[in-house]
């Protein structure tokens, strides 16, 4: 065991893991965190807490994760390289570990031009692969990036992201291999709509035996409306919603019916993903729609979640 985190133990037990995402508020309003927390209790094995997602200032990931942990939930702290240099990143990690956080997702982070501070100076002292390597050496060799010994244990279950749909396509598997070499333990992919292309990516991952060296969780996202689908296609680089799904969302109409159809499609996607060799879990990203996660997990037949005795 690398961290002893609940997520690690579930994945190690061979069970099909479920993680979800919680978006902290744009301020210190703890009640928002508490409300979202209850929506997810018992529905997933770990909860990712985003770090200034799309470069928009929010309650820090470390603080929110500490709140989750104090309330008996398993957080996954997300860490980007945009806002901190290697000194700040390491001290924030020590703080998180001290507060009981055991899962860390290492990301490069969206460019500040997409967020609400486009004129800010970015950092990018490290990139996600260098971050993974740094955290792995802190945990396994008990050494900081600068080479000094670490006072205390850093038992972290290290995660990384992967975008099977970005270009150049051949690079995507090479990059996953680099992350594995850097010491990543689990991977959460970008949300999947284009199933054939994801299968093609997974096939190559399996061919290189990477699925035996890292737990891969497939990312999914429920669509609230046909508008949301079209917005993704136009503005979010890296992946697109195929016409078949857009047609179903349009046919579903508006409001509640559209959201139900979105949940239904997401659940069906999860069942499809479960059959793909090498997929060990699912990561549900319901941005600003945490309510949808319970019905999705339920419909996908993944309840109740396994509770580990010890």
């Amino acid at each position, binding site marked *: 065991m690398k961290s002893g985190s609940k997520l690690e133990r579930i994945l190690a037990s061979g069970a099909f893991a479920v993680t979800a995402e919680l978006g902290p508020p744009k301020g210190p309003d703890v009640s928002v965190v508490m409300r979202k927390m209850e929506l997810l209790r018992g529905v997933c094995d770990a909860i990712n807490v985003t770090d200034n997602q799309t470069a928009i200032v929010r309650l820090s990931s470390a603080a929110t994760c500490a709140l989750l942990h104090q309330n008996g939930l398993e957080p996954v702290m997300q860490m980007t*390289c*945009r806002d901190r240099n*290697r000194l700040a990143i390491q001290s924030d990690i020590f703080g998180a570990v001290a507060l009981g956080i055991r899962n860390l997702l290492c990301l*490069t*982070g*969206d*460019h500040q*031009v*997409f967020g609400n501070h486009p004129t800010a100076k*970015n950092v*990018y*002292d*490290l*990139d*996600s*692969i*260098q971050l993974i*390597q*740094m955290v792995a050496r802190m945990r396994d060799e008990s050494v900081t*990036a600068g080479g000094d010994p670490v006072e205390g244990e850093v038992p972290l279950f290290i995660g990384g*992201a992967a*975008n099977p749909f*970005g*270009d*150049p396509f*051949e*690079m995507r598997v*090479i*990059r996953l*291999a*680099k992350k594995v*070499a*850097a010491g990543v333990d689990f991977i959460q992919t*970008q949300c999947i709509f284009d199933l054939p292309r994801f299968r093609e990516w997974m096939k190559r991952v399996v061919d290189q035996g990477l699925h035996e060296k890292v737990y891969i969780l497939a990312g999914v996202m429920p669509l609230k409306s046909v508008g949301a689908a079209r917005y993704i296609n136009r503005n979010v*680089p*890296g992946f697109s919603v195929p016409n078949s799904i857009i047609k179903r969302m349009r046919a579903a109409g508006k409001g509640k019916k559209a959201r139900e159809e979105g949940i239904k499609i997401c659940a069906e996607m999860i069942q499809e993903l479960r059959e793909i060799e090498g997929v060990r879990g699912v990561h549900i990203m319901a941005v600003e729609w945490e309510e949808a996660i319970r019905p999705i997990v339920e419909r996908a037949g993944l309840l109740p979640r396994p509770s580990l005795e010890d």
Partner: protein
Amino acid sequence: MIVAERKPLSEIIAKVEGYNRLLIVGCNTCVAVCQAGGEKEVAMLAAALRLRFRDRQPAMEIIERSVERQCEEEFNQVLAEDIAHAEAVLSMACGVGVQTLVEQFPDAIVLPAVNTKFMGRPEERGVWSERCIGCGNCVLDKFGGICPITRCAKSLLNGPCGGSENGRCEVDPENLECAWQLIYDRLARLGQLDRLLEIEPPKDWSTARYGGPRKIVRKDMVL
């Protein structure tokens, strides 16, 4: 070379409005090559300002000068009289030229008329793009001759990030190619794709501006 762009005319007008005697100094090296601050641009700016303040009393006196290279004190020395006479100096050189004048003529008010942008090259006439940020420790050999530190919006050394789509960078798809797509294509062409498997360790940024303003001293050239 250094590439610069003249400031908007309205901004320059606001800066010089209060002065009666103005000296405009161009530079005939980098800013002339990129047509931002050479002799002709000095004449153009002078003509525009004269027209703008033609009805003003007292009339605004505008002197036009241009020197070979404004970052060399010897070339600027010829301006001494004009600078003393003028109430303000409008320098059309890059930031280096402006500050050389200030260091050389401490009493002079020296105002910048251009925005110094980057070290880059003309893709075609009239279009320049950045190629080097002067990080102080060149690693171009590792990336097939394409610099990710300058040309990747996030200076990634183990790129690309998730936002690369058909060769364009998500930050500005219209103008920016994804540096890592270029690197990938180039290494594929040279048959050196295996280079991408090696993990590039965190960069030593101290040789770049992050380590503080840099200075080079060539012992063989200093007595």
